[in-house]
């Protein structure tokens, strides 16, 4: 006897997300650093700033999510929208 069973998974809805085009040059670039509030993030970004300045980055826009497990608020996204590229912290 064959039985037919149902797939328990829910397919994601909506348009697939895509990364923005990669930054082609760091010379004079402004880079956004989005902090996910995890304990090591700020120190990591401080170090990253030093490294990226050596590669020509001119300015950084540092923003911190109000909550590590909820979406970034619209106004924070708007503040970051003008930069050339963003580094976003995920997880620990």
């Amino acid at each position, binding site marked *: *006897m*064959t*039985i*037919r*069973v*149902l*797939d*328990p*998974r*829910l397919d*994601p*809805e*909506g348009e697939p997300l895509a990364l923005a085009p990669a930054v082609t040059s760091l010379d004079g670039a402004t880079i956004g650093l989005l902090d996910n509030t995890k304990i090591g993030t700020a120190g990591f970004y401080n170090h990253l700033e030093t490294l990226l300045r050596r590669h020509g980055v001119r300015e950084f826009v540092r923003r911190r999510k109000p*909550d*590590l*497990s*909820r*979406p970034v608020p619209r106004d924070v996204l708007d503040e970051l929208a003008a930069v050339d590229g963003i580094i976003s912290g995920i*997880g*620990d």
Partner: protein
Amino acid sequence: MTGDGMPETENEVRTTPLASASYDVDDFFAANELYQENGWTDGLPIVPPTEALVRACLDRARLHADDLVGVEPVRRRRITAEKVAIAAVMAGCRGEYMPVVLAVVRAMCAPEFGLHGTTASTGGSAPFIVVNGPIRRAIGMNATHNALANASRANATIGRTSRLVILNVLGGVPGRLDRSTLGHPGKFTFCVAEDEEESPWTPLAVERGVPAGESAVTVLAGGAPHQLMNEWTRDPRQVLETYAATMRANLLTYSIWPGNYAIVIGRQHRDVLIAAGWSKHDVREYVHERARVTRGDWRGVGKAAVVGGKGDDVHAALRSPDDLLVVAAGGPAGGFGAVVPPWYGTKSLAVTMRVETGGADR
């Protein structure tokens, strides 16, 4: 509507086609193997979700397959009744449990529950489900012996359904979206009924605003339960001091952040408290005052590095007495209780949701 677009008559039942992909397998054993191999179960065997069983579940809850039960707000997953019914069948639920299952899913989708964070976190919490009201007895839930563990099909399978929803519907796969370092056994199932028959106290759901006589679930993203014992006093303060001490231990060894703690008070402790005239309100007031530590206490538990210059700062487990969920449950003998600590302070708050029974016949 019928297929030709004519309005359905009053007696006609709309049968929504099921959206899920389906697979043909030889038998129930082969079905279980398919779900195990694909990681679609928690490792325990499942009841194969056939269309007939899933439809029976939906019919019992008077839902259409495409009805929306809730939306996980962060990743915007729209959870349909069909997927919840599939999880419920797999977990071993009877159709009559569906109103409770649906209330649990709705509660978990409330923004303040933070389902995404509780699922993804290394902290590894589980939805701790407390059921109140007449549906507990109607579906045979257990509130006495072995209250937090195996004793009733309804407790076991309702709790398990929440896990299978998180696993399959939200993609909470360990090592992928679920990043828990350890997790705890409650992630298999963690569901208790309050013992309203053997307690004169106000049921938890009523305290949280649900009219008396109605059924409801309260869901808390909880860590593993810490069992405690005190059989050597008839003093209500002494009894509660053991609960407060357990919470202080959690503040020190796990997380300093205040939030919703649940305490499950067994019958022997309840007898002491009730004989002394203590209500749940009195319990909350006392525990709120006593469950607090100083930051300097961290020095004694290996966390001296984070005391800084704030050793005298006081940290309470509860922001206010109302943060404490007091649950009456457990067997008649033994001076036991349990503390269920919050996953991560107020990043997730307990949510109470009414069970929509929709009529006396269900």
